[in-house]
């Protein structure tokens, strides 16, 4: 048995000596293994940390513990059946993933989406952003030993999950968006539920702010910690709030508006120093901006169809099957064979709570894609962790991991 255990050692110093400094090989610095089973790694992230006393010399992330082969799986499914898989990539922002995927397929098929569906999509993805930021804020604060914030954040997140359950029947794995629109129209009581949330939430965000923003303990743990310069952030491909924390104004919603984001007024909050504190401030402000967007979208929510009438990508209404032969054919073709986009490739990016979430689809003209690739923002942002953590204290590592807001499901896919 002892033999077996020595065989599973994947991480040996011999293999990794090009990643650590020479002092580690001479035994002058300490190599510390963090994770994969460690609460502050937000999942199953493993880090090999090289320490000089308490100062971090280098960090080598080791990922892949949650690899589920979703991209391979997509190749054997029809385009509609891939939607539930996208929920499971980043399980804290399933709405954004759904949106990115269905919009990529819509681009591939050249489908127009009704305005009502676009507005509902905006409302739900912005709610998802708030829900995701609430999980981030709660766990990030918990990592830096501010226990109460976690409880408050999860209390408010519950309201959003209730709204999701109301529209889709699911709290987290929603799969609510369909190619061409939505699964169903939003139910009665949806608008009231969102309004109630809008009414309550601003005060709650102020509450989190009062708990943390001027808290001396919080400031000492976050100010000047984990700094990344705008140039480094761009060259390492960092996107989302982590990039905006460094002062780079790049938000896909503003830069390349999709799903009628250009109809709404909102600001893109920017940081200055690129440290943990600025990323915290940016995300907190983003929640307020999301509320602004939801408010506008809800006020102007148009009436009309919730899904396109294009029978290539949507099944006909059930009652039509009773009298229309054509509807029956469409129904049968849609649910057995699926639809076939023209051969070609598209890339569509949306602003997920974590950054630019892109979907690349390569179609060979058959009902199943040749290749689906997800550009996972956490995967790319995590790569910048060694840059941020270099020279910080080992206790800061926990704060930095929290501040880049990773979801391991998305990193490993």
């Amino acid at each position, binding site marked *: 048995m002892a033999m077996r255990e020595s065989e599973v050692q994947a991480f040996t110093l011999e293999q990794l000596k*090009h990643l650590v400094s020479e002092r580690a090989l001479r035994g002058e610095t300490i190599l510390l293994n963090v994770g994969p089973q460690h609460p502050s790694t937000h999942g199953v992230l493993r880090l090999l940390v090289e320490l000089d006393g308490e100062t971090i010399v280098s960090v080598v992330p080791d990922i*892949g513990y949650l690899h589920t082969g979703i991209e391979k799986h997509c190749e054997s499914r029809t385009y509609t059946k891939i939607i539930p898989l996208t929920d499971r990539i980043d399980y804290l922002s399933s709405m954004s993933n759904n949106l990115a995927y269905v919009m990529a397929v819509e681009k591939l098929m050249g489908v127009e989406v009704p305005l009502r569906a676009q507005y509902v999509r905006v409302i739900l993805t912005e709610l998802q952003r708030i829900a995701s930021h609430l999980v981030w804020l709660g766990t990030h604060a918990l990592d830096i030993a501010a226990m109460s914030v976690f409880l408050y954040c999860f209390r408010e997140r519950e309201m959003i999950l209730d709204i999701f359950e109301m529209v889709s029947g699911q709290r987290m794995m929603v799969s609510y968006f369909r190619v061409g629109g939505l699964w169903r129209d939003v139910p009665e009581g949806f608008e009231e539920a969102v309004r109630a949330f809008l009414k309550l939430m601003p005060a709650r965000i102020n509450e989190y702010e009062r708990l943390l923003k001027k808290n001396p303990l919080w400031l000492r743990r976050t100010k000047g910690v984990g700094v990344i310069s705008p140039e480094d952030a761009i060259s*390492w*491909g960092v996107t989302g709030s982590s990039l905006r924390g460094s002062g780079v104004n790049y938000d896909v919603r503003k830069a390349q508006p999709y799903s009628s984001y250009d109809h709404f007024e909102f600001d893109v909050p920017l940081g200055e120093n690129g440290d943990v504190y600025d990323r915290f401030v940016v995300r907190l402000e983003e929640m307020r901006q999301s509320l602004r967007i939801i408010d506008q979208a809800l006020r102007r929510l148009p009436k009309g169809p919730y899904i396109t009438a294009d029978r290539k990508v949507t099944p006909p209404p059930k009652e039509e099957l009773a009298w229309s032969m054509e509807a029956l054919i469409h129904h049968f073709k849609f649910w057995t064979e699926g639809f076939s986009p023209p051969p*070609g*490739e598209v890339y569509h990016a949306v602003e997920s709570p974590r950054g630019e979430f892109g979907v690349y689809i390569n179609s060979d003209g058959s009902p199943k894609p*040749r290749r689906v*690739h997800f*550009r996972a923002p956490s995967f790319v942002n995590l790569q910048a962790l060694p840059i941020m953590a270099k020279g910080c204290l080992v206790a800061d590592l926990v704060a930095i991991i929290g501040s880049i807001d990773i979801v391991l499901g998305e990193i490993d896919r």
Partner: protein
Amino acid sequence: MSIPEVIERVRARFSEAVQEVVEFRGETTLVVRREALVEICRFLRDDPGCPFNLLSDLCAVDYWPERPRFAVNYHLYSLPRNLRLRVKVFLGEEDPVVPTVTGIWPTANWHEREVYDLFGIRFEGHPDLRRILLPEDWEGHPLRRDHPLVVEPVQFSFNWQEIDARKPYARE
């Protein structure tokens, strides 16, 4: 500056290296030769008129059984100009090697490791080309189209002799 102008400049500078320019659904794909890939990428990043400073994604496609079999896509984004461009390079099955772009965009590091891990495409000059998602001792590259989705076929036969011959461990 717009995408057609960028394409014009690349064509003027690297006339032989540009194989094809594809327009599809408002996206432009620049298909280039492998030999000139790094130079073209460097040119695109440093072009003062339209610097593509963000490599937003890098992924591979397996066109099996078509030939050439593999392609690597570089999804570039220009922050100052708000433009997207896809650079594509095709690779043969016999020699799936492509020069690394980690020297141009450091973020390519993990993307290239992922492509190496799942497709077996090697990146020449990569500083740390190890598997990233799969275990070190994994055999094969699962995102290749000829890699089976399930290893064990579903048993439909009740011919026990045949089953015994195929799966001697099933009796135990």
